[in-house]
């Protein structure tokens, strides 16, 4: 499981970084989305990878090792909400830039023009 998660984070991040460095705004936004997936998975993995363990304490006898760490899950939730909102904002900006400059290049003008 570790290998699969690590590969997933690596591939998502690599694709995200590559796309962010591309010249078109749509590629940049896709890159940001992929990068945020990679980062969210990474935060999640920092709570250690476990299967079939509840995050909420239950009952009187508490053996912490039997539970998943709930904090990274809460952090991921916050991070997802924030990146969702900023992606929405970025989409609007992307459309505004397209409308105002007439091109989807990130510098607002075609290279060489």
């Amino acid at each position, binding site marked *: 499981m570790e290998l699969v998660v690590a590969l997933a984070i690596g591939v998502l991040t690599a694709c995200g970084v590559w796309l*962010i460095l591309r010249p078109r*705004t749509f590629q*940049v936004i896709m890159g*940001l989305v992929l*990068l*945020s997936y990679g*980062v969210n998975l*990474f*935060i999640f993995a*920092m*709570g*250690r990878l476990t299967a079939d363990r509840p995050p909420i304490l239950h009952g009187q006898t508490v053996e912490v090792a039997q539970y998943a760490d709930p*904090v*990274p899950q809460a*952090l991921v939730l*916050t*991070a997802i909400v*924030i*990146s969702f*909102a*900023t992606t929405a*904002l*970025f989409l609007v*900006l*992307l459309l*505004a*830039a397209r409308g*105002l*400059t007439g091109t989807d290049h*990130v*510098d*607002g003008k075609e290279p060489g023009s």
Partner: protein
Amino acid sequence: MIALLQHLLIVPILAPLLVGAIQLFLGERRGARVLFSLASVLVQAAAALTLLYMTTDAMPDIWTEGVGVYAIGSWPAPFGIVLVVDRLAALMLLLTSLVALSSLVYSLAYWDRVAPAFHSLFQFLLMGLNGAFLTGDLFNLFVFFEVLLASSYGLLLHGSGVGRVKASLHYITVNLVASFLFLIGVAMIYGMTGTLNMADLAGRIMLLEPRDRALFESGAAILGVAFLIKAGAWPLNFWLPTTYVAASSPIGAVFSLMTKVGVYAVLRVGTVLASGNEQTSFIDVGLFYGGAATIAYAVVGMLASRQLGRIVSYCVVTSTGLLFMALGLQIDALTGPVILYLVSSVLATSSFFMVNGLAQRTRTHRIREAADIAPPDITYAGFGISQPDPLSPKDEVGIAIPAAMAFLGLAFICCALLVAGLPPLSGFIAKFALLRTAVGHTADAGIGWHAWAFCAALIATGVATMISLTRGGLRLFWTSQGRTTPRLRIIEAGPAAFLILLSMAMTAGIAPVMTYLDSAARSLHSPDVYIRVVNGTREATP
């Protein structure tokens, strides 16, 4: 009364949050929105002043040793979220509210009518700033950074236009990537230590296994990179000058404070990390070289710029570079002057952005023809309300001041003196204090060469700033071609003058200011008190 005062810590976050939310529902009632905004900023200023007073240990029944802590929901420290105020945080809160007040009043002349959500966004920006200064928790630092960045995206776009949209594309992308780095750093630190509370973290660093230490340090380094991007350190600051020029002038004034949040975060997190282990902090000689590179970049950019706004933006970068260079020297006695320089440069550049906005009007005959006029805003239609005419002639606040050119010239000279660090204003005192302390430590083992280099950089930036500002001023005031006398309103000229007067007042009363700053620096460098007080919430709550 005492019991109520303990809750004062949360006021700088709650006031703008509530006011910003209420303003969303006020529709066409602009007067009410303005009143709410002003009231909120004044409440924040009052709260900041009281907190400043309380951190001087004037009220020993509430807080001792200049550190106050507020456990939200009475959850004790490592489990719940805490807000912590110490002298540096209280000072930054006050600075924020003063800059916000002047920028808000300035915007009432024109900018706040350009789009309906201006006041709400402005309040949320203040909430993010105040929260970032107050929080004692790394993840909450991230959340407040996001709050202030999200509002800053909106405010940067405020007024629309091609220039702003183009600048925003770069600004938002860079800051989103910085946020991801921030998250990775925070996650790694949590993964290694199991805590996000800064005070708790300091204790856990010493308990780290040697094999975990490398991962923890890389996490801290990634976090440091995120802070440096926010602060505008080279090579992560190419977005900054374009963005700050594109922003409308009152927003530029607040933005010049925003870079200093990055510096504050470096100071805050760096000193707490250093208490666990000298090696783990990111305040070290690397910061010195980064600062030096930032200064070199800014000086070249400044000398190459023709537009006054760009020169001022590069001044913001220069001050960040100088701050990092000074911190990188790792001389504890230098931290007091560093904070003084930080405050003084924020006052100067904020005021300069406003003066720049006013000075641009000398180019055109009437305000309506000036280049920096926003197109009609579609969001008004979206909210289903009619847009008030931003330039309505019968405006109660539109009283023009006499001798507009004389005022502009004088304000320009004062700002230039402040930024370049020439006597008699506070910029000079700050730079002089930095120089004196640095020269006093040139004999120390290991840092002698660095201290001399810092002195050279300090003087060289002063000269470069003076040269470029003189050129900018000559072009602005002494070339008579096509120049007209602008109409300046009191509510535009007043805020710029207010910030300059504040720095003058700081010069006049430098002794108490310096005493306070030195004690702020001392408490920063002995984080044991901070850590003890925060961890004390565990015993205090049942």
